[in-house]
């Protein structure tokens, strides 16, 4: 038990430090993402690729309606553009004058993650890769973490989906990815940044006695994206494309308010002001006025 309390205390300490002294972590890698919302078409290829890669259960209409969907990556859609056209949506007789706004949301892999310190059993913790991880076999299903996630990006197995009338009736089971688990009833799960792909790349690099190369890890969503709107890589590697994109956008980790020289840059983090310190940088959607 002492180690368990130790883990929980460590979670609190990390969280507090993350808030007070952002960017304090000593990571091996710091996996991060950049999503260009001007390129994202909202086509959903990423979301389905994620189902295929990560053994995500489908739940059917009624459970979906009850917000028990298991999707790790959802593509949100909004019809307003508060930044450039705040009044447009109020005229009930008008038609849309622009398209919609799409936002692919997966776990933001926060560095001061609000889900971590509330776990009573330390099932949710931070890896030395800067990932916000969920230890499935430690999870007792208190759901405190999901309750505390401001992004609503944790999904809970309210049911078992492994029965014959579940998500994978024979022979669909044969498609399940053996690199990762199939989660059972009562367990919280979430996006892992395709940790199995990260692990494979790290293992290969270790065997070849070198560092992981930029572009060596591709997440399933990034790989399939038809417009290549998603970029993924190591923010500790100064050569990586993500690092360069973050620098170009003058967005720094460990801050809840960016003091940028150029306020017109497109980079922003969703709910950055909550000081969750997310690892996903979005580039603003661009629209002709």
């Amino acid at each position, binding site marked *: 038990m002492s180690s368990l309390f130790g883990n929980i205390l460590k979670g609190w300490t990390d969280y507090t430090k993350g808030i007070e002294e952002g960017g304090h972590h000593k990571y091996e890698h710091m996996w991060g993402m950049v999503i260009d919302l001007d390129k994202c078409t909202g086509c959903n290829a990423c979301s389905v690729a994620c189902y295929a890669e990560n053994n995500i259960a489908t739940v059917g209409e009624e459970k979906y309606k009850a917000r028990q*969907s298991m999707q790790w990556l959802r593509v949100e859609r909004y019809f307003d553009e508060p930044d450039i056209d705040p009044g447009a949506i109020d005229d009930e007789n008008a038609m849309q004058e622009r398209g919609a706004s*799409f*936002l692919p949301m997966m776990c933001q892999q926060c560095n001061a993650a609000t889900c971590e310190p509330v776990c009573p059993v330390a099932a949710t913790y931070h890896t030395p890769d800067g990932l916000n991880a969920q230890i499935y076999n430690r999870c007792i299903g208190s759901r405190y973490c999901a309750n505390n996630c401001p992004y609503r990006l944790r999904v809970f197995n309210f049911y078992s989906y492994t029965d014959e009338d579940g998500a994978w009736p024979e022979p*669909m089971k044969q498609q399940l990815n053996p690199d990762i688990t199939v989660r059972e009833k009562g367990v919280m799960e979430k996006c892992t940044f395709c940790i199995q792909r990260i692990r494979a790349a790290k293992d290969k690099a270790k065997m070849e006695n070198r560092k992981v190369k930029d572009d060596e890890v591709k997440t399933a969503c990034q790989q399939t994206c038809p417009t290549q709107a998603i970029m993924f890589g190591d923010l500790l590697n100064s050569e990586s494309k993500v690092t360069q994109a973050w620098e170009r956008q003058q967005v720094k980790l460990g801050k809840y308010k960016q003091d940028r020289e150029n306020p017109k840059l497109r980079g922003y983090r969703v709910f950055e002001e909550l000081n969750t310190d997310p690892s996903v940088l979005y580039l603003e959607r661009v629209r002709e006025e």
Partner: protein
Amino acid sequence: MSQSKLDRRQFLKGLGLGGAGVALAGCDLPSYVTLEQGEENVISYLAPDEYVIPGVGVWYASTCLGCAGGCSIHGRVREGRVLKLEGNPDSSVNMGRLCQMGQATLQSHFNPDRIANPLVRKNGSLVEASWDDALSLINEKANSGKAAWATGAISGHQRVVVETHLSAIGGSNHYAIEQINANVWQTACGDIIGDPNPEIHLDKAKVIFSLGADFLATFISPVHFAAHYGEFRSVPRGTLIQAEPAMSLTGGNADHWVGIKPGTETSLALGVANALMNKHGISGSGISNATKSLINEHDPATAASICDVPADRIEKIAASLAANSPSIVLAGGTATANANGYSAAAAALMLNQILGNIGVTITSGRELAYPQLGLIEGNSANLKDLAVDANKGKIDVLFVSGTNPLFLAPKSIKMDEGWNKIGFKVVLSSMLDETASAADVVLPLASSLEDWGSHIPAYSTGTRNLALQQPLMEPVFSNTRGFGDVVLGLAKQAGAPGLDEYDDYYGYLRSAISVLKKTDSEKEWNSFLMAGQTPVPSLGRKLSYIDGKISQTANTATDGGLTLIASARMGMWDGRGANLPWLQESPDQISKVVWDSWAELHPKTAKSLGIKDGDYVTIKSSNGEITTRAFIYKGIHPGAIAVPIGRGHSALGRYAKNNGVNPLFILDGGVDAKTGEIATAATRVEVKNAGKNKPLAKLMEIDRQHGRKLVATISADKQRITEGGT
């Protein structure tokens, strides 16, 4: 079922393919399980078979058959099972990317509702039979009258064997049926610029003006165009203007979305041409006097009154096109799915001509040097022809594969009646869809991931490739057979000459490609399979411009009803995606609805009809009615109601059956005047509240951000200051 022997090596040996170098596209790493206290390799390496090393995934190249786009894929095979599909980065079609339908192909392969054994109709119902019995029944009946084939889009050597079989049984009619197609646009391109499949350079355009062409989701080769759209959105950033009556995925990404009265797209194009000529001094070289006088009749104010788009927006479109060259104007989707469809496509090409885009953003494509291998795209005019010919008693024996005419056909064209007049119907399918359920013999096919084949992608630039399809694993259902194997067998059985030397379709395909590529070396063949594609000779075409063929006989009916738009979506597609739970649970891109159909209504229309979000509405045409739930939003013209195609199956499998409604059934049978394409956006309907309400299951309960910075937007002017571009 053959789970006990999912061993690719054994299986390849069975095809004479043992030995080194077989289609090995690359390995990924052994999987380690990282325990908390350290790393431990939990998989032992016990004398592994080649390529079947426990824990090692091997990627094999093949081709996606989700639509006619023909994207090249890599499938990850581990312990004899295919686990994941990814785009092949070397493909000029999809450059390593895939859409959601491509990703979900795995679920049609591992589908629990696949047909496991041949079925033969006895005393009115389908019962299981042996292959020998089913084939001898076909042998007995196939020559008993006028024979025909119905397929979906088909190309490569599958097309050759189908046509060989058809002529061996004395038939001549091959109906290639695809409900979702670009036939009207392609016919217009062929007539007007002399190339039915020109290269479309979205990445070079500064403005895309699209009349209904949903190039990000349903137009010719969606993944290819989406990739080019990504370039188009890079610096310098292009502007997308989409005009359509109901918002498509492409419309959902538009800088300017123009909701237009259904069927009046030609007038909008003429209005834009008028503004370009009169306000921006564009000369209109190559335009005939007849067209010029049509343009003169459509000043923006007149066009505005016809198509219900404000005149100042028409002028704004013209100004944007005039100021940013080169541009590109496309027509497709809803714009071409009405009686004036061809006219809209012709008007789009006319705009390209006066804007100087032809030869710049629209350039000549290439034509296969072996036309008999070329793609027959398929269209819905053929669907109507099939119904008409069947009703006239012109078909006695029909073979069907890759299409589902009983689901796709509007009731008004009397496909069901025609079907019953066909004496003997054979369906080759992996799923028991509506058509297979009504067949006399059903032959169970291997899935697209278990089969051999060669395909010509619907669209590619530069060199033309023959995309190769190879099995990624042993058949999941052991008593199924490959499409090519079955048709080759049928052709041999019918006495087609010159096929006796081939034991199976693999042998046939390999010989055919050896002849095509002028090499029969094992090494070369393996290199083709590893690449998943191989270049084939092609000839350049030349573009010209022949003006004319624009007319506007708009459906201006004002009888108080609405125009039904049976909308095409990436996902369910023409209904083939409906039994794949990943696609059922993947929210529609615009409405975000899952697991059911919906009817899109404008708030103004909904209010006048007393309909609220989630109310069941009855949509009634002269050919029947459907009832589904309302989705109310402003991305639709107030004179239209849109219901997506793809759901409303009475068969196909547990996920598809009795889920949603099929708007195709109640179409009035109208067609595009020139091409005969079934007009899916032109049926007049009455809409009534059915008196029940149940909120739709959807991802987004809200449409607005309520001031939170979720999707932040920046104006393009500001973006140009920081990132450049003009």
